[in-house]
């Protein structure tokens, strides 16, 4: 069962990829615009990763050594960008940093020239917004992994903050930070929605965006396919580097193990830490708050098309969650058994390397002879979203299954339970929480997705994020803000319902 699913996933990724390959054959060379897209993709990803990790250092350090009310909530919230729709966050960033945003109003009031958010720095800003929390969580894990005795030892030896930084924190960062940098670099190379809204033009087009433009505007399938291959190559190189440095997982729980600290009690370090935490919290929360404040009032005046799109999105998300869990559970069970673990995990991670837009393009090429592309838009989007969620779901499910098996596998064996019985009475109850979390994650990711759907949705067939993007494009900012509130509520709501569902009466 698990093996069959793995093969299915492999086909669902490699099939479209070969369709792309097949189609790309006729094209010989990349033009200057393509080369500049490649350069921009890599350059903005380097900058985004660099800023995210560098800014995360003081924040993670402060969170590691301070205890305050709301600390746990803040750390929890740092995990939220995974389920935050990109387009909502970008709209929030526009409200703060945009041309008519809060920041420019402030700058104008004191007579300073305004800033421009579109282009390279806007793309980097949005990427830092999304990846700073991930970087903080990854680094915080590193900090909390420093054995508690070592801090006690440091206290007895009279270490100053500087000594601790040199002998304990710097060595830790040297092992953790490169991994965090590469993961964020990888994420940013596949960035599409951010570039779609904040980038564009010859100087700020990512490869993914170029694929979209080739496909949508020029309908130059050969070029789209060739760019797709370039994108795959970039991801494979970045992905290989990530595997090579062995990145720690940043999604797990258990991030809040208390480590007693005896250092950093001075007034200056308290001030520095407080400032780092406050600035990070403001940077992450203000844009979302701005969207909520500006959008909530317009919610009831939203046009009917938006509500229809919302309904479509809900159904799509539920279907995606169903497909994603159905695909990931058998695979996770097989991985947990330990057989061909590496191979299966590689298949599960393939969808990270082969970007959703490329798979979408390939599926389009494959389906074109058989059905009208517009009628296949939603099923294709659902499938691609489910595949994109797969690596995250495997990460959540495999440890839960391993734990259930380690704890109760032998007992079930001795009672002669096998097959469906065992799954129904032992495995599923034990992994309910992970299942709920997985379904919620897949649903929320799909809810906020603004990727494949842009390739071939008909005007009356958009999902909520796409509808919102159209509203932004036609400068109906108020409607877009109201739609953003709706989208945010639906994404978080879906995640919450599934995640809760997994916890209610969950076996402990």
């Amino acid at each position, binding site marked *: 069962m698990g093996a069959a699913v793995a093969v299915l996933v492999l086909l669902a990724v490699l099939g479209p990829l070969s369709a792309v390959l097949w189609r790309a054959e006729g094209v010989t060379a990349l033009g200057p615009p393509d080369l500049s897209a490649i350069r921009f993709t890599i350059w903005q990803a380097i900058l985004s990763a660099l800023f995210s990790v560098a800014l995360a250092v003081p924040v993670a350090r402060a969170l590691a050594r301070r205890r305050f009310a709301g600390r746990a909530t803040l750390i929890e919230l740092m995990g939220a960008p995974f389920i935050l729709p990109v387009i909502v966050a970008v709209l929030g960033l526009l409200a703060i940093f945009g041309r008519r945003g809060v920041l420019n109003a402030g700058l104008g009031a004191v007579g300073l020239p305004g800033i421009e958010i579109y282009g390279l720095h806007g793309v980097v800003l949005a990427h830092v917004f999304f990846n700073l929390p991930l970087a903080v969580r990854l680094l915080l894990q590193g900090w909390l992994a420093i054995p508690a005795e070592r801090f*006690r*030892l440091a*206290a007895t030896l*009279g270490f100053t903050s500087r000594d601790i930084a040199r002998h304990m924190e710097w060595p830790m960062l040297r092992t953790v930070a490169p991994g965090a940098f590469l993961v964020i670099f990888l994420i940013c190379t596949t960035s599409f929605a951010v570039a779609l809204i904040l980038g564009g033009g010859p100087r700020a087009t990512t490869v993914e965006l170029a694929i979209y433009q080739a496909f949508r505007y020029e309908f130059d399938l050969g070029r789209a396919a060739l760019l797709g291959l370039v994108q795959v190559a970039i991801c494979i190189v970045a992905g290989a580097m990530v595997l090579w440095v062995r990145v720690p997982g940043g999604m797990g729980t258990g991030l809040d193990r208390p480590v007693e600290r005896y250092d950093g009690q001075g007034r200056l370090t308290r001030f520095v830490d407080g400032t780092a935490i406050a600035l990070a919290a403001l940077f992450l929360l203000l844009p979302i708050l701005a969207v909520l404040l500006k959008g909530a009032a317009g919610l009831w005046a939203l046009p009917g098309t938006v509500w229809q799109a919302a309904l479509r999105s809900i159904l799509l998300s539920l279907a995606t969650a169903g497909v994603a869990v159905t695909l990931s559970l058998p695979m996770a069970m097989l991985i947990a058994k330990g057989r061909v673990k590496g191979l299966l995990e590689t298949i599960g991670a393939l969808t990270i390397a082969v970007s959703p837009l490329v798979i979408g393009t390939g599926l389009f090429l494959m389906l074109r002879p058989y059905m009208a592309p517009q009628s296949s838009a939603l099923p294709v989007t659902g499938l691609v979203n489910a595949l994109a969620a797969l690596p995250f779901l495997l990460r959540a499910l495999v440890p839960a299954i391993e734990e259930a098996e380690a704890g109760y596998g032998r007992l079930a064996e001795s009672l002669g339970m096998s097959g469906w019985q065992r799954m129904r009475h032992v495995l599923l109850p034990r992994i309910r929480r992970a299942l709920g979390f997985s379904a919620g994650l897949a649903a929320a990711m799909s809810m906020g997705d603004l990727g494949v759907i842009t390739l071939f949705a008909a005007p009356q067939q958009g999902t909520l994020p796409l509808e919102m993007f159209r509203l932004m494009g036609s400068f109906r900012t108020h409607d877009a803000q109201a739609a953003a509130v709706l989208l945010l509520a639906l994404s978080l709501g879906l995640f919450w319902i599934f995640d809760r569902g997994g916890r209610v009466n969950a076996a402990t």
Partner: protein
Amino acid sequence: MLRLETVSRSFDGFRLHADLAVARGARLAVLGPSGGGKTTLLNMIAGFLRPDSGKVWIDGQDVTDWPVPDRPLSLLFQEGNLFPHLSAFDNVALGVVPSLRLHEADRAAVAQALQQVGLSGLADRTPGDLSGGQRSRVALARMLLRDKPLALLDEPFAALDPGLRREMLALVGELCAAQGLTLVMVSHELRDAERLCTDLCLLEDGAVTLNGALAPMLEAPPPALTPWL
């Protein structure tokens, strides 16, 4: 040398109460079951925990409110005494100055401490390239070099095999005697106490149930001590 004046500390429904004194140069073993309060006691002496009431005196000074680094004592943990990325030499040198900015005289002192614990040739090795016994010796060398009058040992050498453990306890005894150190060792092995200590204190359920010189207790064991024999 060390005096715990009716100190008490409670948390999570557990309460530790102790009134103890250790003479200069004496070596006290704190024995007791897990959860009896041994580590809590040690943490209060070291300054990681503040007592709710009572006072801690070290070397004639009331250190109850002193921060950890200011207290005149050295600590030796069960493990995790060394930084894995620093050489044995640097790990010892941290006892001189954490910034590792050493004068010529400091370097000589570090080398001498390493020699005292029998590690002269291994100064450049990192902990990963040392055996368990050698790592303990590095930590001991640092303790010597810090030259604080009070040494606190938290189940030291528990990770070592019995032969090596005996050897290390003997070494600690020699070094303490040579430097005139006062010592408090938390342990759950009476045998370790026999090898090293002069006094014994039994700590059960947060209360001291036995306290005094070790030798007479071993000759005529009081009932409280029988489970540990």
